[in-house]
């Protein structure tokens, strides 16, 4: 089906960076693959010098206007290219060239109070929090963009401007900036169109026609919608400095109408339409964003019917055929989803495609109406705007400036306790310390966020958001219906295990005194036998142990109580049980902890168990997770499950995965991701059994825990897995 695309893939893979050269996905925008046409614009060095001179010459005025002028300068001087191997153009200068003269500079000028600065310094030093201003990730109103196109978005902003009886200086700048940026976007599109029109290869004519339509109005075909998404993404991410966190409001839903229309009118064949989707997806695979570019599918209409349709299948088939893992797909599933939809994805998952995040659609909608009080008609089609995060479509922008480490209060509680204290005292201190940490974090975060719109005005984004235009206020700051702030919280498993190990070692078994345990910890577990006991403590989070789970629930309750507290942007706080990569960072800075963790080792991720400590298998793990009530975490709740490929083989295996999903959903789940292991993982599991205590393998008709097998059995199993590949 994708023959032409497959021939082009080797070229597209080299579009954004050269595949045979070293590549760091964290700095992906620092690379170039295709050089573009040098006669069309500057290289990065030239652009930087020219932009610097231009920035110096801009009179000091409102930041939004300065940023917009810089944006326009970059677009007007950007080097471009069109290539015979691709339906999407090259925008060469993509490393946020204006940031050094705008957000980067303006952030340094912002100050916070002494009290907030003191809290921040202390909490960061004790690895209790990590924080920085977050002013760059959001989803625009794609529907407005499809309906109006870039020219229409500009005209609509002009109308809103004319409709405001009086405008402050800042509001005037808000509209000026939108006009400057969107005019620049239209000039760039016209330049791209003219360039394509001058190219002689096969695809050029189609590209030129598509760009011509976008230069003049709204997209009319599916390919034009994809081009619009691509251009918005590239310009926002790499020039306007706003990460675009979902490609469409459900890509399948957003492309359905033009797909059907194109097909009915005979404009494109089904193969051509599928291949446009393929070229589009390949861009994100080739860009190689380290966290994966999010894109979601599925969902439910207001009347409860499913949004999964034949285009969903086309997208999944193309994604499957390309064998890529970026973009990563968040897939909404609910009781009304057709069975082929889950089966198709679960089958891909068990073939090693772990880049699916399954989202419990019904539970998230119920959370948004129930806990957040959002009307049903505003949240039935919520956005999934990151790995897991949920937001009101085109109406909510959240900043996530503060990461919280739940293991830190468990450590401080132990440090504040002494021989003679009861275990209940230590647990109570942990919860007290957590409460104080959250209160302090809110105070500090409110100061950090006071002037987000002065640091990085969200010009491209705001122009798409009706509420922002009505108020003439920046959408990412306080111009949306819901201006929310997120606490990103991780380390639940580590925190529970640490307290439970204290209880077990000191109080239940009397193996060691509190002071002695504290000494052993300061010496990074100088007593190996004691550490072994801590690691084999019977009360581990993630095993369905009632004691550990109830402590997990208490800590989760405390975190969830931040939900709804007011922030500094006219909105409120949300909570996200998600540690991003902070579990490594926090761990690196922490000493040994009572759960058996050595100094510097990572903490547990998200709301999950400590790696390998979910010893009773996947069903017990899910039960433990559900005790913390994932779906009340209003921003999201990351949860990974590991299974061996043989545990999910055959019809029985697929049915079992489906049943796990259904049970997690029915029990109040939020999101879930599966990891299916192969031989290389098994070899690692053999070398590091402590990390894989929950790994299951199927042995002659049933599943068993990997670590219950002797080495010789494991060897054979590895051999067998290799033979199966």
């Amino acid at each position, binding site marked *: 089906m994708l023959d032409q695309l497959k021939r082009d893939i080797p070229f597209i893979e080299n579009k954004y960076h050269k595949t045979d050269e070293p590549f760091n996905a964290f700095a992906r925008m620092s690379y170039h693959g295709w050089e573009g046409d040098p006669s069309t614009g500057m290289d990065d060095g030239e652009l930087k010098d020219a932009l610097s001179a231009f920035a110096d010459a801009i009179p000091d005025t409102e930041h939004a206007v300065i940023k917009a002028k810089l944006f326009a300068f970059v677009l007007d001087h950007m080097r471009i290219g069109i290539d015979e191997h691709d339906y999407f153009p090259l925008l060469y200068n993509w490393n946020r060239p204006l940031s050094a003269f705008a957000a980067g500079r303006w952030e340094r000028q912002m100050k916070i109070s002494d009290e907030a600065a003191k809290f921040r310094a202390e909490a960061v030093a004790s690895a209790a929090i990590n924080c920085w201003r977050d002013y760059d990730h959001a989803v625009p109103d794609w529907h407005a963009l499809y309906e109006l196109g870039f020219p229409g978005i500009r005209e609509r902003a002009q109308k809103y401007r004319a409709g405001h009886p009086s405008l402050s200086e800042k509001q005037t700048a808000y509209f000026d900036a939108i006009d400057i940026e969107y005019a620049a976007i239209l000039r760039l599109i016209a330049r791209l169109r003219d360039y394509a029109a001058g190219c002689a290869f096969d695809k050029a004519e189609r590209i030129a026609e598509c760009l011509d339509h976008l230069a003049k109005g709204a997209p009319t075909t599916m390919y034009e919608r994809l081009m619009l998404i691509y251009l918005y993404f590239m310009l926002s991410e790499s020039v306007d400095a706003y990460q675009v966190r979902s490609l469409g409001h459900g890509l399948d839903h957003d492309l359905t109408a033009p797909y059907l229309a194109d097909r009915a009118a005979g404009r494109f064949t089904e193969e051509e339409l599928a291949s446009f989707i393929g070229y589009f997806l390949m861009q994100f695979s080739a860009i190689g964003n380290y966290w994966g570019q999010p894109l979601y599918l599925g969902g439910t209409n207001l009347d409860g019917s499913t949004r999964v349709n034949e285009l969903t299948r086309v997208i999944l088939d193309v994604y499957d055929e390309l064998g890529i893992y970026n973009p990563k797909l968040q897939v909404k599933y609910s009781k009304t989803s057709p069975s082929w939809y889950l089966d198709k994805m679960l089958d891909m998952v068990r073939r090693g495609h772990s880049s699916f995040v399954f989202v419990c659609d019904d539970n998230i909608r119920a959370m948004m109406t129930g806990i957040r009080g959002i009307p049903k008609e505003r949240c039935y089609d919520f956005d999934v705007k990151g790995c897991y995060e949920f937001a009101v479509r085109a109406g909510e922008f959240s900043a996530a400036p503060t990461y919280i480490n739940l293991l830190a209060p468990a450590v401080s509680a132990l440090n504040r306790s002494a021989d003679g204290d009861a275990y209940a005292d230590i647990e109570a201190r942990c919860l007290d310390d957590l409460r104080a940490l959250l209160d302090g974090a809110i105070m500090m975060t409110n100061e950090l966020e006071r002037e987000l719109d002065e640091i990085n005005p969200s010009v491209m984004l705001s122009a798409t958001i009706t509420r922002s235009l009505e108020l003439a206020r920046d959408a990412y700051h306080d111009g949306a219906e819901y201006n929310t702030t997120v606490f990103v919280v991780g380390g639940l498993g580590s925190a529970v295990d640490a307290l439970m190990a204290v209880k077990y070692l000191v109080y239940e078994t009397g193996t060691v005194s509190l002071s002695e345990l504290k000494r052993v910890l300061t010496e990074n577990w100088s007593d190996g036998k004691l550490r072994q*006991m801590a690691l084999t403590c019977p009360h581990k989070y993630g095993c369905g142990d009632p004691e550990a789970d109830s402590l997990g629930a208490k800590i989760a309750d405390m975190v969830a109580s931040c939900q709804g507290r007011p922030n500094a942007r006219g909105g409120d706080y949300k909570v996200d049980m998600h540690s991003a990569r902070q579990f490594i960072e926090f761990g690196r800075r922490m000493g040994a902890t009572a759960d058996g963790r050595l100094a510097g080792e990572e903490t547990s991720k998200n709301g999950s168990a400590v790696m390998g400590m979910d010893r009773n298998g996947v069903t017990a793990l899910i039960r433990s997770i559900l005790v913390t009530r994932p779906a009340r975490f209003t921003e999201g709740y990351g949860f990974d499950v590991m299974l061996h490929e043989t545990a999910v083989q055959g019809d029985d295996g697929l049915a079992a995965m489906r049943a796990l999903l259904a049970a997690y959903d029915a029990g109040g789940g939020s999101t879930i991701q599966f990891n299916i292991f192969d031989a290389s993982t098994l070899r690692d599991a053999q070398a590091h059994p402590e990390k894989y205590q929950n790994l299951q393998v199927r042995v*002659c008709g049933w*599943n068993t825990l990997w670590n219950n097998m*002797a080495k010789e059995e494991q060897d054979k199993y590895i051999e067998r897995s290799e033979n199966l590949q």
Partner: protein
Amino acid sequence: MITEKATGIVTDFKRFAVHDGDGIRTTVFLKGCPLKCVWCHNPESIGRTPELAFYREKCAHCGECVKVCPSGAHTIEDGRHRFHREKCTACGKCENACLAGALKLCGREMSIAEVIKVVAEDKMFYETSNGGMTLSGGEPTLQPGFTLSLLKAAKAEGINTALDTCGLTTREIYEELLPFVDTFLYDIKHITDGGHIRCTGHGNERILENLRFLSDAGARIEIRTPLVPGFNDDSETLHGIGRLLSGVNITRAKLLPYHSYASSKYDALGMENTPPPSSARTRRT
């Protein structure tokens, strides 16, 4: 008439068992088996009483087990640990003392309530998958009173039941269990009596009779055949099994691939292993 029993010897539990009957199940392994299959991958289930498995290669020679054993079954000589199986009473005290994980007690006495508590924990998964409890072994019918009580208790909890059985028991026992078993997972290992003796040490006459009885009684039956190179993977045997099955009512038949993973378990239990020659043919079959 089976006399119900309040306790029995349980070897192990397996949660998230997805290949032991319908849906997601918890498999309860009951100790004791009348057969001695040459390929048995579960040798800890053969004996009827608890026994200690000692995984020599995991032992760190630390001597912790010596301190707790009331029978002197563990000793340290010249810095090396030795296990004297003949002295061990399988009290289980040393299992937790060994932090290296070298000691595992196979089998312990449990009550109906204890077993059902474990099984019921995963009820939410049975509900979404039509799963439930599977009794396996060993051979559960060797503990008929306990098996019957467990099945009744599971049914009383609304839990679906499956019985994994080798067929070698009395017809009367099946008759009494029948009302409480939703699915029989019935092993057919060979078609001829001689072949069966060679594979398992027992003939199959009674096994086939019992299968016909269960089929006639309307039981839901799933046939399971472990495919063992050199014993039952020849086309004559497989065709014979096929012919046999065409005469009984079954819901499905499954071939289970043979593996030779269990040899270290034999060693740990001080048992002699009798592995089939090679697994090369299994792959071909």
